[in-house]
């Protein structure tokens, strides 16, 4: 049953990264657009995401619940030591959600839209950065896991683990990934005249992802961050990253031929491969602190809890997944039956 729970943990992580990632990306693409294109993007994004965006963000709640029910000690480390970046993620999620509602549900469309728009764009950019920073901090090797808090300063325990070059680079890398996902998504949703905008944007995003990925790895190598050196040594990791890299070629081709389902799938698969590569590097030791490593498996709750959690997840999944699927299908976000 433990593996059922881990499976759901992985699925909700991947779905959150892809679905919410594309959502965050919408704001990022808008942020880095000319004023004219911002309007087009805003409209397109709403028509694509409107019905599903709330559902997209619930994956993080599922993720958090699985973690704290099933892997309490692991979760404990995250919430104690990464309190500050997680609070900032929270701020971003709140601001973003509110701004999204306001700009689409306000009864009057007037000057206040400008405020909502900026709130939406900035929080869309900041949230994935802090999410990435949190993920980076988990493996940065800067965390100090201790019982004796008084032996260390506030900064050593609660600030340095995430406020460092490596974590920040991971944050930027994740934001670029989000922008990449969205620009690919939008290519298929816009009309002939606007399509070149997003084709160009997806290329820029793709190049940014590659460059940032390269910088993250080089930084890790120079400063001998354990996660990065292991990342480069692990044959599975390297193969997954290489596979993701090779997929760029069919992706470029499918964009050129305007085959939107194929290009979306490819982009999604690329992102999944990168996340899997990062996870597999040190599995099951997903937290690499300066003084210890922490295994997600070993921090699992007792068997009875895992069993109940697993059953709840299976039952919940049976209800939710078809629902999500129909929602996407009904509003033509999945066009397999085309």
């Amino acid at each position, binding site marked *: 049953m433990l593996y059922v729970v881990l499976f759901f943990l992985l699925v909700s992580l991947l779905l959150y990264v892809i679905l919410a990632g594309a959502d965050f990306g919408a704001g990022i693409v808008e942020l880095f657009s000319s004023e004219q294109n911002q309007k087009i993007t805003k409209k397109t994004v709403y028509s694509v995401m409107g019905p599903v965006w709330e559902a997209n963000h*619930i994956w993080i709640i599922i993720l958090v619940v699985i973690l704290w029910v099933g892997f309490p000690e692991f*979760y404990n480390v995250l919430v104690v030591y990464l309190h500050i970046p997680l609070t900032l993620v929270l701020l971003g999620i709140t601001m973003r959600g509110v701004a999204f509602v306001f700009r689409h549900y306000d009864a009057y469309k007037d000057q206040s839209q400008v405020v909502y728009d900026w709130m939406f764009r900035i929080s869309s950019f900041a949230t994935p950065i802090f999410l990435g920073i949190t993920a980076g901090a988990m493996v940065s090797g800067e965390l100090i896991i201790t019982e004796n808090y008084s032996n260390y300063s*506030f900064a050593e325990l609660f600030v340095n683990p995430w406020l460092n070059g490596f974590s920040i680079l991971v944050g930027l890398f994740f934001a670029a990934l989000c922008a990449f996902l969205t620009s690919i998504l939008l290519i298929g949703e816009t009309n002939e005249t606007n399509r070149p905008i997003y084709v160009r944007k997806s290329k820029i995003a793709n190049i940014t992802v590659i460059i940032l990925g390269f910088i993250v790895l080089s930084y890790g190598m120079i400063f001998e961050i354990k996660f990065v050196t292991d990342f480069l040594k692990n044959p599975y990791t390297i193969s997954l990253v290489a596979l993701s890299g090779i997929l760029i070629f069919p992706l470029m081709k499918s964009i050129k031929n305007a085959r939107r389902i194929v290009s979306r799938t490819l982009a999604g698969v690329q992102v999944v491969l990168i996340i899997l590569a990062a996870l597999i590097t040190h599995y099951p030791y997903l937290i690499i602190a300066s003084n210890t490593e922490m295994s997600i498996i070993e921090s699992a709750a007792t068997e009875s809890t895992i069993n109940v959690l697993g059953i709840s997840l299976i039952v919940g999944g049976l209800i939710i997944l078809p629902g999500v699927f129909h929602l996407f299908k009904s509003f033509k976000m999945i066009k397999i039956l085309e």
Partner: protein
Amino acid sequence: MDNLDAARLQMAFTLIFHIVFACIGMVMPFFMIIAHKKWLNTRNPIYLKLTKSWQKGVAIFFVTGAVSGTALSFELGLLWPEFMKYAGPIIGMPFSLEGAAFFVEAIALGFYLYGWDKIPEKFHWFTGVIVGLSGVASGILVVSANGWMNAPSGFDYINGQFLNIDPVKAFFNPAWFTQALHMTLAAFTATGFAVAGIHAYQIYKERQVELHKKAFKIAITFGAIAAILQPISGDLSAKDIAKRQPVKLAAMEAHYETQKGAPLYIGGIVDTENKTVSHKIEIPKALSFLAFGDFDAEVKGLNDFPDDVKPNVPMVHYAFQIMVGIGTLLMVVGGLFFISLKRKSWWQKNWYWLLFAILAPFGFIALEAGWIVTEVGRQPWIIHNVMRTKDAVTPMPGMIYSFYFYLCLYGILTVAVTWLMTRQIKSLNNSKTV
């Protein structure tokens, strides 16, 4: 202010906000689907207009409720990591089911909001029903988790270890039913009176009277029925607390001396130094009867409990008085509404609408007061008789800044939502009469 107080304030503050958003998001879909049903049955365009404007309200409150709920799911861990570490595996089940119910709600709401003229009419309406039902299910599940903090069960606590964990037993803890029933009725009362009050004010101001009267009638019917049923559930809760958390009951009543045939105090000013209550109305033997169904039963007083297990007595007592006082008032006014259905002439009177307009916030005041009774009344425990709140708080210093930060965040959120709702109502009133 020390770390613990700051963390408690922040938690209280977030919950106070979340409860309002969550209740409205949970109850308003029911108003919406009734209006929708009436539109389908009568094809009166006013009902369509009403449905669509309520639907916007539902969307706004659902999303603010969802983000403040996401914030809470993080905050539980961020503020109380030690609590979550041990409680997570035990009460995780209602939380994971709540996640599922909430997800179903989001999916159904997606269908509902964007499904107009796109999916079959009846199915579209039905997705609205799912929104309402899954909202209520979420509420019940979360309250069940809170019930566990009051009535911990489903584990053995041996030498500081939580052993033999049984999540199903923890879910169906002794407090879950009374608390869930009380909260569900409270949510319907508070939202019913709030929504009805807003529409009553519009009628009082003579704006779009026909539409607002229809809206008023739907909302207040829910509110009034719930308000009239609430005392029954309150009685169940009181008897349950008397058994399980006698110190909480004593604090609610500011009952210091253990005695048989204990009187019930209404109102009064608590003097914690001398352990007395002045300026109260005293009903002989009533407390014994309400707590145990026996006029001569013994009710244990605060003096017979050690100091380190007592909550803040005046706060719990005053909050309890406010809750019961307003609850009684709303029950009476709910009765007036049903009388007014016979005496149609009242609907032409200004005082009638003004009365409901003034009462708009009262349901929520009572609801918040009720949560203060149950949460502050549980202190100093985070898990009753098992773990103290001070042992659960985060080791990270400087929580006071975190508190200020959330204060600003939720302050902005409130101003923003209020501003948005005013604009919705304004736009509704300015639109052409159908």
